[in-house]
């Protein structure tokens, strides 16, 4: 009788034979003593292996045990976050809301106002370093990417459909049925012609001499509207000249806007020179952000304007809230509501200007904004920025974060040294490339990566410190908690006078070094040393 081979017996022991094969093998084993002995010994061996492997000779290491401490951290984060938000609210949002309330603007224009205030906000350049701005924008992109990767499956079809509907609803009505003209360099709607629908048009020059019985959405270098638009105008251009009539609102972003026609509702404009000419008639309010705003024609309702120079030479039916540097109220100025001016200079009021009440003037100190945003504001901002960017990177590559923080960062001296070499070398390389004009683009790329690396250095350092404080993370939320705690520790350290600067440099070098070591490691892994092909292994007899 042919004996069973050992592999079959092993599969039998491991329960890996098909039922048919299993029963025939069993029958054979019962009748064949050597095979039965082989089967039994394999079974014994298996039991032995199992028992040995399952022996608990080593407990779970301390730093792998699930960590508590989440609650106190969340509580602390909430308190700090709450403080930050309340500060932000009382410094920034609340005065603005009150200001808007005074000029009778409802919440709909909140966004516009925030943007306008932001444009004028001189403190920004001091407060936000270029690096952080860069990092913020980058982090927004990365965060969107992360969302797409991790959360895509969670975005239900219905949610997606709802979002699309919401976006469509936010678009001017009837956009789907609009007349769309995007092919021509110069688009002219001749006088006498009527479009019974919305018109979406893009080109070099767009002239509307006829009638649009819907909204006009236009993007061009030069836009001239001398005809009639029954709905709103939404325009993006270098220059917009409006001499016709508009039944709805005019909303534009352009270098210059010149209105000489009539607008039945409101005008919201951002640009450099914004002018409502003497021939114009605005029945609603005028909200603007620009360098120079000139009001030559009447505005029936309120003004909310942020500009360097304001000139008002016409009737204003509502009240005015003006922010900027200079304000001139000309001979033709007639105001029926209050005029409030926050500016750098006393307003100039012509003798024959007719004002319902004197201009309420408040001097804006050059540095007032930045001193208002005190230490805590700075602190919160930089911490939050680093956290947002850090989470994006940590979530995109948990393995990378793990490798950097667990493998390279613990070698403090080695990382610091590598950081010193890499930071110096990176800068030298970038500038070396940039001074040879040929390498300029490459130099800029190197410089960008160098800056990004320096910024990321604190992220990984924060992650490492967080791990040291709270232990190894076991899931993504714990990873983020560690990141937040570590970054908090770093930012607190950085804010200590003198020591903080040393610490900043040390963290940058240490993190940059670990990042460099990781990259070198990854590169050397990807291209293993060339080795001769191994000879076929000899099976032991």
């Amino acid at each position, binding site marked *: 009788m042919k*004996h*069973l*081979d*050992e*592999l079959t*017996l*092993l*599969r039998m022991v*491991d329960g*890996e034979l098909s039922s048919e094969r299993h029963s025939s093998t069993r029958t054979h084993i019962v009748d064949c003593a*050597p*095979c039965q*002995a*082989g089967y*039994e*010994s*394999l079974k*014994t*061996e*298996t039991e*032995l*292996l*199992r*028992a*040995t*492997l*399952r*022996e*608990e*000779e*080593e*407990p*779970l*290491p301390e*730093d*792998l*045990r*699930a960590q508590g401490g*989440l609650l106190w951290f969340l509580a602390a984060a909430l308190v700090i976050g709450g403080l930050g938000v309340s500060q932000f609210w009382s410094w920034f949002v609340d005065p603005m809301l009150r200001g808007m309330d005074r000029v009778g603007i409802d919440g709909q224009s909140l966004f516009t106002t925030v943007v306008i205030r932001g444009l004028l906000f001189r403190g920004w350049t001091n407060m936000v370093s270029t690096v952080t701005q860069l990092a913020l924008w980058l982090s927004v992109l990365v965060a969107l990417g992360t969302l797409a990767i*991790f959360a895509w*499956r*969670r975005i239900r079809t219905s949610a997606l459909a709802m979002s699309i509907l919401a976006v469509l609803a936010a678009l001017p009505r009837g956009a789907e049925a609009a007349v769309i003209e995007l092919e021509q360099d110069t688009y002219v709607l001749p006088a006498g012609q009527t479009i019974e629908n919305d018109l979406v048009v893009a080109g070099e020059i767009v002239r509307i001499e006829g009638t649009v019985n819907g909204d006009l959405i236009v993007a061009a270098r030069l836009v001239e509207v001398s005809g009639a638009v029954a709905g709103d105008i939404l325009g993006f251009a270098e220059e917009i000249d409006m001499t016709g009539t508009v039944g709805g609102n005019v909303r534009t972003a352009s270098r210059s806007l010149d209105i000489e026609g009539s607008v039945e509702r409101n005008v919201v404009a951002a640009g450099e020179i914004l002018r409502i000419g003497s021939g114009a008639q605005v029945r609603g309010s005028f909200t603007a952000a620009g360098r120079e705003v000139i009001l030559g024609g009447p505005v029936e309702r309120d003004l909310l304007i942020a500009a360097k120079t304001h000139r008002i030479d016409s009737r204003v039916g509502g009240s005015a809230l003006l922010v900027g540097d200079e304000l001139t109220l000309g001979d033709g100025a007639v105001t029926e509501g209050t005029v409030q001016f926050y500016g750098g200079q006393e307003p100039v009021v012509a003798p024959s200007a007719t004002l319902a009440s004197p201009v309420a003037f408040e001097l804006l100190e050059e540095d007032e904004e930045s001193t208002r945003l005190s230490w805590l504001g700075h602190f919160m901002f930089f911490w939050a920025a680093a956290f947002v960017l850090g989470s994006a990177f940590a979530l995109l590559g*948990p*393995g990378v974060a*793990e490798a950097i923080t*667990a493998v390279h960062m613990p070698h403090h001296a080695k990382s610091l040294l590598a950081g010193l070499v890499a930071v110096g070398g990176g800068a030298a390389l970038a500038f070396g490339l940039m001074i040879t004009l040929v390498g300029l683009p490459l130099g800029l790329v190197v410089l960008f990566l160098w800056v990004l690396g320096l910024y990321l250095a604190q992220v990984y350092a924060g992650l490492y410190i967080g791990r040291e404080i709270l232990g*190894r*993370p*076991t*899931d*993504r939320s*714990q*990873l983020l908690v560690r990141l937040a705690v570590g970054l908090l520790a770093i930012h607190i350290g950085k804010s200590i006078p003198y020591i903080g600067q040393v610490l900043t440099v040390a963290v940058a070098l240490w993190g940059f070094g670990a990042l460099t070591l990781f990259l070198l490691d990854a590169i050397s892994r990807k291209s*293993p*040393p060339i*080795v001769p092909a*191994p000879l076929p*292994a000899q*099976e*032991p007899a």
Partner: protein
Amino acid sequence: MAGRGDLEGLVALARAGSTAAWGRVYETLAPSIFRLCRRALASREDAEDATSEIFLKARVRLASYEPSRPFAPWLYRVAANHCWDEIRKRRTRAEIDDAEPELSTLEAEAPTPQEAVLAIESRDSLRRVLSELDDRSRLAIALRYYADMSYEDIGQALGISPNFVGVLLLRARRAMRTRLRETS
């Protein structure tokens, strides 16, 4: 330790986004996963790193887990894939034997019962020879006899056919027997 039903309930909560539930899942299964990694990977540090990374990966992939099936085997499969990735990452290609083992040499042989028994003096010596196995064989043994994974699942993790998993296991056992005989 939570019972089976409890565990799947916790996993369902974790899938719905509960961090606390995932913490409990971790507490329940981390010791087993750590021990698997400890058996499968070369060093204690590697095993620690692997354990936390496996749970990170598992949480990310939780959406692909089929809730009607038991959770632990699914987690073991994640662990198996991760360990094999780690092993491959840490060695250059020349160092790992990831070819399919030769079947013929094994199948032709008749059973030799007296040799089939491992000459064991102590579990310590068995652990020692286990640790001396090549990475892939050690992983396969750990997956089969510690994690109770089927040949099919092991094969999927290692990228070989289920048949060859049997060959790999048998060859590993023979290597262990030879080592034990040599040292005793």
